[in-house]
């Protein structure tokens, strides 16, 4: 009591903190947790505006990459750790690989009874000469069903992102108004060389695609690759002749219905085969003679369905990217 410290100094001492806590004046929330929203309890618009401006200024400073050293440091640290992580991952994977069974060897866990059965009795059980086609469309058809729906859902998301719709009043959506509807108008049209080549190439490409699809169970290929080839052909045609030409035979409606019928057929056909299989019923679908075009049960129609979907989807992707619609 003899020597009194000045108040400011006293406020820094441990004793002050201790006694203020003892008296219950110290608040657990104060300054840490609750204060921020509390401060603006009775919103004063001017103050509010000023706070926002300050906030902006701070953010400008914080996110000014060139002048902010801490952020730059963090950035470099992030990069360094990422690279280290990747190197570590690579080393780990290489070590792992060095312990894996040898490539190309005939005796290893992968070459077990599963692969053996696919090869040995695949022909008679599925009727497909191409064992891979038989496997993905019959033995493991559920995966493939999922796979085609991956494509479907991806199309849906692309539609959501890129389709330019007008609302009921016919105005374009404000969210997508910045998007350039058709960027082809800036390009040279009716390029003679391109059209010449295209009119020659497109039929060949499409016929090749159809061949790949129809031949899916007999040789390499199948619905997916064939569909992609046809889609590429359509894209070439579109580029050569413009949207006006393609819209005559291919609009969004066409796309919708083709997709719907193919996927429904796919779903229903596979459901039938799953259902009969699981309940040990006899499936009425004939296998046909292996090697013939009309053989191997459902594989050919399924390939066609997948091919249609994929071709349309590929074209749809392109049209969406190009002008936000068909």
């Amino acid at each position: 009591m003899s020597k009194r410290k000045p108040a400011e100094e006293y406020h820094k001492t441990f004793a002050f903190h201790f006694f203020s806590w003892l008296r219950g004046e110290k608040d657990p929330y104060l300054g840490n947790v609750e204060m921020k929203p509390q401060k603006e309890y009775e919103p004063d618009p001017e103050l509010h505006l000023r706070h926002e401006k300050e906030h902006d200024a701070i953010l400008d400073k914080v996110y000014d990459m060139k002048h902010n050293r801490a952020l730059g440091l963090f950035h470099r640290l992030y990069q360094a750790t990422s690279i280290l992580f990747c190197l570590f991952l690579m080393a780990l994977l290489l070590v792992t690989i060095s312990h894996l069974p040898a490539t190309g060897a005939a005796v290893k866990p992968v070459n077990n009874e599963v692969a053996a059965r696919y090869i040995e009795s695949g022909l008679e059980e599925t009727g497909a000469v191409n064992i891979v086609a038989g496997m993905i469309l019959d033995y493991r058809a559920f995966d493939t069903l999922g796979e085609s729906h991956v494509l479907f859902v991806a199309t849906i998301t692309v539609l959501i992102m890129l389709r330019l719709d007008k609302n009921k009043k016919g105005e374009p959506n404000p969210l997508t108004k910045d998007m350039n509807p058709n960027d082809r108008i800036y390009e040279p049209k009716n390029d003679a060389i391109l059209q010449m080549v295209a009119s020659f190439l497109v039929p060949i490409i499409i016929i090749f695609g159809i061949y790949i699809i129809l031949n899916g169970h007999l040789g390499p290929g199948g619905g997916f690759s064939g569909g992609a080839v046809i889609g590429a052909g359509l894209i070439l045609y579109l580029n050569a002749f413009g949207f006006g030409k393609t819209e005559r035979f291919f609009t969004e409606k066409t796309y919708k219905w083709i997709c719907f019928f193919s996927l429904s057929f796919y779903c229903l056909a596979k459901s039938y085969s799953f259902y009969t299989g699981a309940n040990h019923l006899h499936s009425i679908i004939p296998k046909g003679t292996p090697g013939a075009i009309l053989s191997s049960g459902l594989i050919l129609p399924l390939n066609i369905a997948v091919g249609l979907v994929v071709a349309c989807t590929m074209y749809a992707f392109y049209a969406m990217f190009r002008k936000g619609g068909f």
Partner: protein
Amino acid sequence: MTAFQIILMGLLIICAVSVSFSKNLLNSVLIYMSFSLVMSLLWICLESPDLAITEAAVGAGITSVLFFVTLKKIHAINVAEKEEEQKATQRNLPENGGKDE
């Protein structure tokens, strides 16, 4: 066959690395396209023709086309001078980007 495979694999790695370091987006996409082609060749060597066809049609075909369209949409396919211009505007963006919206 093995030597051929090793060469192809070397090409793959070269492609992958040069994609990462290429400055021009169009170049990267082109390199990626060749990456896909090399990959499909490699799959022929590995006795998987199904994969080779699919990769050629999809990786080198459709995916690359989609990349090109995207580059077109974001104005990245341009002659060299325009690119410089583009870069200059991009650099200025943080200042005026907020006000534009």
